[in-house]
């Protein structure tokens, strides 16, 4: 459904994307993971026709999206990162407007507005103006506006930022349902449990490059995840005999068959300078750390 190849984009000297590829099949959910500034939003913006790449190609449902953006736009729905709704219009008016903008007939947009509102828990708020919605409700409406024309390709840029637990749940269920109905979904997030809940395939992007892609199981199998991470005050003892990698100031990791007990033994008296030690478990967080060498940022949980 989506076939983006060699996407390259620079803002002056800053390389936002460097020959990045992204392919998504019908019914597939792809979680695009990356730190802030990694290139996720740039990639989605290019796919949605909001930004011109310096190089590369985008095909959506076989349509050349860069050559025929209007035709490609009919196939996609995007919920950008920042909430964008008409606060002076009601929930129903917002949904019906975006349906009409996409060319839905009056009957179709009324039906779809009702369906999407029910899916996202907005049915009771149908006649409430956007300005009277809570942050979570506005976020749901923001996403609902991208779904109302039942797009074949859905791009969701951090849809749950600032959302409450109920909103997250509604969004995840809705995305899974759309994928089950055949839509291809690209979903960016910083929140790893969402990726697991979506059972999404994963693409990791860092500094504009795609670093890894595959299913969760494949990526965990591909990348050695065992090891320890520690913070140490002062200079490391010279004779640890381990392959220590510096990941940040005073922060190190050792990948491989090493346990916390081994580490403490090897440090000996210098162990008193250890600030923290943690085991690296084979989860998505660790996998992200292994692939990019950095932790993904965590938003504050609501």
């Amino acid at each position, binding site marked *: 459904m989506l076939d983006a190849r060699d996407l390259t984009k620079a803002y002056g000297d800053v390389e936002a994307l460097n020959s990045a590829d992204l392919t998504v099949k019908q019914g597939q959910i792809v979680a695009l993971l990356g730190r802030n500034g990694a290139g996720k939003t740039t990639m989605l913006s290019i796919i949605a026709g909001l930004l011109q790449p310096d190089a590369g190609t985008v095909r959506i449902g076989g349509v050349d999206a860069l050559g025929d953006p209007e035709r490609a736009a009919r196939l996609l729905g995007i919920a*950008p990162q920042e909430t964008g709704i008409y606060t002076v219009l009601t929930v129903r008016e917002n949904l019906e407007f975006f349906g009409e*903008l996409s060319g839905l007939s009056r009957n179709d947009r009324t039906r779809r507005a009702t369906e999407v509102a029910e899916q996202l828990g907005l049915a009771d708020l149908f006649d409430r103006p956007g300005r009277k919605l809570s942050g979570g409700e506005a976020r749901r409406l923001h996403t609902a506006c991208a779904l109302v024309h039942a797009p074949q390709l859905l791009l969701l840029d951090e849809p749950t930022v600032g959302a409450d637990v109920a909103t997250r749940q509604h969004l995840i269920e809705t995305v899974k349902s759309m994928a089950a109905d055949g839509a291809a979904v690209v979903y960016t997030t910083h929140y790893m449990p969402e990726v697991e809940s979506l059972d999404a395939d994963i693409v990791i992007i860092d500094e504009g490059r795609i670093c890894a892609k595959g299913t969760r199981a494949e990526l965990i199998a591909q990348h050695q995840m065992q090891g320890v991470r520690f913070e140490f005050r002062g200079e490391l003892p010279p004779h640890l005999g381990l392959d220590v990698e510096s990941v940040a100031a005073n922060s190190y990791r050792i990948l491989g068959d090493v346990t916390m007990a081994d580490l403490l033994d090897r440090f000996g008296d210098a162990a008193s300078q250890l600030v923290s030690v943690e085991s690296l478990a084979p989860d998505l967080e660790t996998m992200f750390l292994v692939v990019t060498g950095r932790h993904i940022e965590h938003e504050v949980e609501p």
Partner: protein
Amino acid sequence: MTAALAVAKLQLRILRNDPWFLLIMFLMPLAVMPLFKQTMGLSLVSSGFSEATGAELVVPGQAVLFGFFVAGSVGFSLYREHGWRTWDRLRASAASSKSLLAGFAIPWIVIHVGYQLVLFVAGGMVLGLRLNGGSPLAALLVITAYSACVIALILLLSSTFRTVNRLNAFQNVGAMVFGGLGGALVPIEQLPGWAQAVAPATPAYWAMRGHRSVFLEQGGVSDVALPVAVMLAVAVVFAFLASLRFRADETKEFFA
């Protein structure tokens, strides 16, 4: 076309849900009109219109002056989309830049014409404005041409200015300067010679010239043909330039 219609209906829906701006823009000139009537009447009598009451210039003058403020709304509605973060959603739809621009412009021309008509009727009732043999069709043509002209001017400015503050400043100063030079505040013949010389460069001058023909000189359609033609020609040029200059991917700043 479908997208342009959807955006056009959106403008009307937003206005219906939040009509206060237009309501204020209607009440303000109505409140101001009586203050100017006597002075304008004396000016007109001294200019040789012995039967004039002042309403013949006060009502059109305030419609032209406040019409410039109301025309700014088409620009504000464009910038507002950026403030609401909905602009990218419009761009990501199948709508072309030109259909989006048309979707904003067309309803505002209709609203602008309606606004002036209501102001003429209400102002006429309050101040006793009469056509006195002038053609209502001629008045409608002048009103429509003025609406097209100032809406196109605001679209051109909106496609040029990055921030809404610049448009706001231009609209406020422009309304007073253009209105003053064009004869919306005092009869044109009472302006200094240099002002009379530059007055034809303003849309207000041509609108007031047309209204004077209708309300003071019993003019018909042929009498307003020149001012209407000038305003429509300028509207076409401004709209063309706006469509060339308008870039949908340009980031605009709404009020911070």
